């Protein structure tokens, strides 16, 4: 009780509030029940001083009335006892449970058969659902695979076209390549056609050939001298 109230103290609730609201909590906890209230004075409070020596008067009944009451009570008790015994034999749960092991085993087996039946039924239902689900999943996977194959084919085609283009360009470019066959001719040509790159260029494309370079043409020389 103390620990539980302590745990509730984090919510700043008093024990009375907890008792008030937890009276009929469905998750029944005996520790959270209301306080046991008495409508009399507590047991440890002694008898009042004025009542200590009081002797309560015993009611005096006439003898015939007392006998009559006794007779009534005896009859009543007998009748009630017989009713109780009858109800006990009819309704008592002790008699419902057999202690014979063979019978218990038989009941258990019957129960097991019933359980198996229910289980088989459920399994059949689940099997239908499962097969439908698996079929659906397979169909979806097939559609997805076909789509993927199509995409792959498209990609391959694109790749093939790209490579073809590349090869074509390279072939075109390879006309001017230097090969062992034409290398001598090209060397001869390069030696014959000497090129001088020692010049500067204006933004408008005009070449400025310096003084120290070898002049090839007169005009160029004149322009570079200024």
């Amino acid at each position, binding site marked *: 009780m103390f620990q539980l109230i302590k745990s509730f103290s984090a919510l700043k609730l008093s024990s009375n509030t907890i008792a008030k609201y937890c009276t009929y909590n469905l998750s*029944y906890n005996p520790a959270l029940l209301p306080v046991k209230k008495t409508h009399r004075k507590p047991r440890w409070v002694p008898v009042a001083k004025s009542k200590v020596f009081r002797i309560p008067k015993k009611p005096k009944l006439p003898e015939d009335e007392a006998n009559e009451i006794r007779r009534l009570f005896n009859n009543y008790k007998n009748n009630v006892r017989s009713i109780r015994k009858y*109800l006990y034999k009819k309704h008592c749960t002790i008699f419902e449970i057999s202690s014979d092991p063979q019978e218990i085993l038989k009941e258990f087996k019957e129960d097991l058969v019933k359980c198996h039946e229910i289980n088989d039924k459920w399994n059949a239902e689940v099997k239908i659902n499962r097969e439908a689900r698996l079929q659906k999943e397979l169909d979806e996977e097939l559609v997805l695979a076909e789509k993927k194959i199509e995409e792959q084919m498209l990609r391959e085609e694109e790749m093939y076209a790209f490579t073809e283009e590349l090869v074509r360009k390279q072939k075109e470019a390879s006309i001017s390549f230097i090969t062992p066959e034409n290398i001598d001719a090209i060397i001869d040509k390069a030696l014959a056609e000497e090129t001088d790159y020692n010049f500067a260029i204006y933004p408008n494309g005009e070449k400025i050939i310096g003084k120290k370079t070898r002049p090839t043409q007169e005009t160029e020389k004149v322009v570079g001298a200024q």
Partner: protein
Amino acid sequence: MLPPGSGLGVYTVQCPKVIRLLRKGCTNRPFYHIVVAHTRAHQSRPVIEQVGSFDPLPNQYNEKLVAFNFERIRFWIGNGADVSTPVKQLLGLAGFYPVHPTSYIRAWRAREKLEKEKAAAEAAIAESQATDIDKSENVS
């Protein structure tokens, strides 16, 4: 939240059970549930099961209404539940049990009282009539 009729009390096999009245209602307005509870359990504890109700105040037709779930009462008595005296009286009047002796006692005492009052009233009337006759004789 109101407790369900099935009760929330924890059923313990070894504890003795009792069918008794449980005071509900409020101040100056008693109302009783007839419940199955552990004999030693306090009134404020949850009961095992509610098996009926009893309204001790007479209604507009001068009736005190009582309801029983006899099926469950039979079951619980069959399983060894004790019955408290007030419930025994009610069951006796309902015809489930034999009529409780206290019901008879109360009845014959009330009858005696009534007869006494009636006799006293008659005696008073007779006396007053006698005095009237005496007076009239004296006057004449």
